[in-house]
């Protein structure tokens, strides 16, 4: 007789309920919460400037905006500590900012300038800063999953208490790298947290077409690890789930797969004509699922910040972005002579020791 194993009855479910009745600020102080708001706003305004500059042809290349998803990166990275690392995606500006990268050198990188984090050699899709624990944005969907698993493997070998967080999208959950990476990490109980930012679309194709199941988190069952669903626009929900996953990872209990249900307000890339969704759908999300508006209201409800406090933060961030744009635009182009540098460590472009 065949045995049917139900895929649903395992521990997949919302961490704190998709719409918590009472606000849970966890262990976050007032200044933590304000700091998180500032980070979310920094991501939002950074990308709004990027979009403006792109449309004015003051910035070029492939640019993928994270607007609408800011609470995921911000909430998740707030749960990390010294020496923890992340891997990111093609939609990586938010993860960079949430890890503490500065808007000036980021803007310069998007402009291909020598003062950029990668000296203009990477651009929007490849920003990395090892000093910040940012192992790299990535132009290949799903590629960060084995890489962050490897960072966690490194911590495991060295018996460090650090964790790796891997951000990826719903599209990446259909890559082979997703299966190979998570399966390997789960087998060794590596300290890695897999965070799927399910924004509803893999490039142009709806997740409804791509996924034969409703939730990416359900896939955790097949790796014997917890699968958790959070509302991606609710930063406190994200923070709580990631904090618990980090605790488990540091305790040696292995990976967690967290699916953040989110929505990208902009197209897949700048210039995307968005034939795959209606304006009404986007407008509805902007009205009801804007993480910045939601968190601003929550801060006021909790008495952490007044409307005036938030206004002041907005003015500060606007000034910061003015400086970032000016920094990028006034920075020099790389010299042609650097074309052939940085291919190897300690060797020329032919691999010969220098």
């Amino acid at each position, binding site marked *: 007789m065949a045995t049917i194993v139900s895929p649903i009855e395992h521990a997949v479910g919302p961490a704190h309920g998709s719409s918590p009745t009472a606000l849970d600020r966890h262990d976050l102080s007032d200044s933590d919460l304000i700091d998180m708001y500032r980070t979310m706003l920094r991501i939002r305004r950074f990308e709004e400037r990027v979009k403006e500059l792109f449309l004015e042809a003051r910035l070029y290349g492939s640019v993928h905006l994270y607007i609408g998803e800011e609470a995921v990166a911000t909430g998740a990275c707030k749960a990390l500590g010294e020496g923890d*690392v992340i*891997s990111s995606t093609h939609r990586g500006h938010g993860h960079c900012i949430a890890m503490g990268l500065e808007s000036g050198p980021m803007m310069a990188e998007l402009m291909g300038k020598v003062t*950029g*984090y*990668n*000296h*203009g*050699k*990477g651009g929007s899709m*490849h920003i*990395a*800063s*090892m000093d910040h624990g940012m*192992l*790299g944005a*990535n*132009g*290949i969907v799903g*590629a960060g*999953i*084995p*890489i*962050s*698993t*490897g*960072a*966690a*493997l*490194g*911590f*495991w*070998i*060295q*018996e460090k208490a*650090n964790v*790796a967080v891997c951000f990826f999208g719903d599209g990446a959950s259909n890559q*082979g*790298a997703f299966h*190979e*990476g998570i*399966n*390997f990490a789960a*087998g*060794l109980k590596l300290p890695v947290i897999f965070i799927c930012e399910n924004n509803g679309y893999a490039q142009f194709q709806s997740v409804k077409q791509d996924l034969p199941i409703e939730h990416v988190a359900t896939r955790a069952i097949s790796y014997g690890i917890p699968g958790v669903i959070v509302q991606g626009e609710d930063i406190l929900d994200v923070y709580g789930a990631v904090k618990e996953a980090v605790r488990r990872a540091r305790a040696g209990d292995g990976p967690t797969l967290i699916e953040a249900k989110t929505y990208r307000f902009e197209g897949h890339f700048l210039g995307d004509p968005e034939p795959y969704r209606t304006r009404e759908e986007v407008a509805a999300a902007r009205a009801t699922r804007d993480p910045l508006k939601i968190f601003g209201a929550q801060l006021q409800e909790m008495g952490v910040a007044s409307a005036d406090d938030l206004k002041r933060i907005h003015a500060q961030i606007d000034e910061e972005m003015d400086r970032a744009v000016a920094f990028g635009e006034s920075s020099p182009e790389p010299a042609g002579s650097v074309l052939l*540098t*940085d*291919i*190897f*460590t*300690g*060797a020329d*472009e*032919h*691999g*010969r*020791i220098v």
Partner: protein
Amino acid sequence: MAVVTMSQALNMALTEEMARDERVFLIGEDIKDSTYGITKGLWDTFGPKRVIGTPISEAAIAGAVLGAASVGLRPVAEFMYMTFMMCAMDQVVNQAAKSKYMFGGKAVLPIVYRTMAGAGRANAAQHTQSLEAWFAHVPGLKIVMPTTAYDAKGLLKTSIRDDNPVIFIENKVQYATTRDEVPTTDYTIPFGQAAIRRTGKDVTIVALQRMNEIALEAAEELSASGIEAEVIDPRTLVPLDLESIVGSVRKTHRVVIVHEAHERVGFGAELVAQIVQHAFDYLDAPPVRVANPNVPTPFNRTLEQLSIPSAAQVVQAVRGLMR
């Protein structure tokens, strides 16, 4: 000094480097029990956190070493067959090879990807292919192909100490059949220094890896009829010791290139281009390649042998140049 096999020499290099540097670890499929004996005994010596057996997941292996290198380790990954690396190409080519450049030089990625190529064990086409040219084509990878047990140990040590991704290609036939004197002490062999396996004045034979054995056999036969061949083993393709190769061709005025990889767009094509560019005026005949005739490797032993360059083919090629 002891006479050991290629696989023993590789085992010595791994053992010594793991003892020397605790950041070095091994990862791959079946490396605890070690199908070909290269990592034999290392799990017992260094334990499960230094010798990590993985699921059959080449992309996970290739990417995990990149992540581990990013946090300060010096991984040595094993891909049991070079053909299996095809399952890991994104991580090797798009990630490991390019990261340093894309990141503006910040990443230091000391990774060794060990793998096994060559033909002659009746493994058929999906377990037999020499794809060094694919990797040599990609900026950011160093390519090492040891020919002797002595070189295998010294070059593997250099690879492990190198701060870049290295594709270290071993030959499946040579594991057991190639044996020579290998010091039990520490030594390294620098990249980019070809070995002159035989000196001669009449023709240069540039041979990759096991094809040096074929080339030397051919050279002996040619010598009997008064033709003295110089046999050069590049040992590393990236970096390439072009000076030694070009210097030899300028002396002999003729060159034959021998490799197990397919002839079309094989590394021999690059060598011919470089030789023509740097020694055109010295050539008395067009450079010739002896290689796999652009076929997948057949299972049948007789057919497989026909697909591998032979000493007779090398002799014939040289004689063709001497006319």
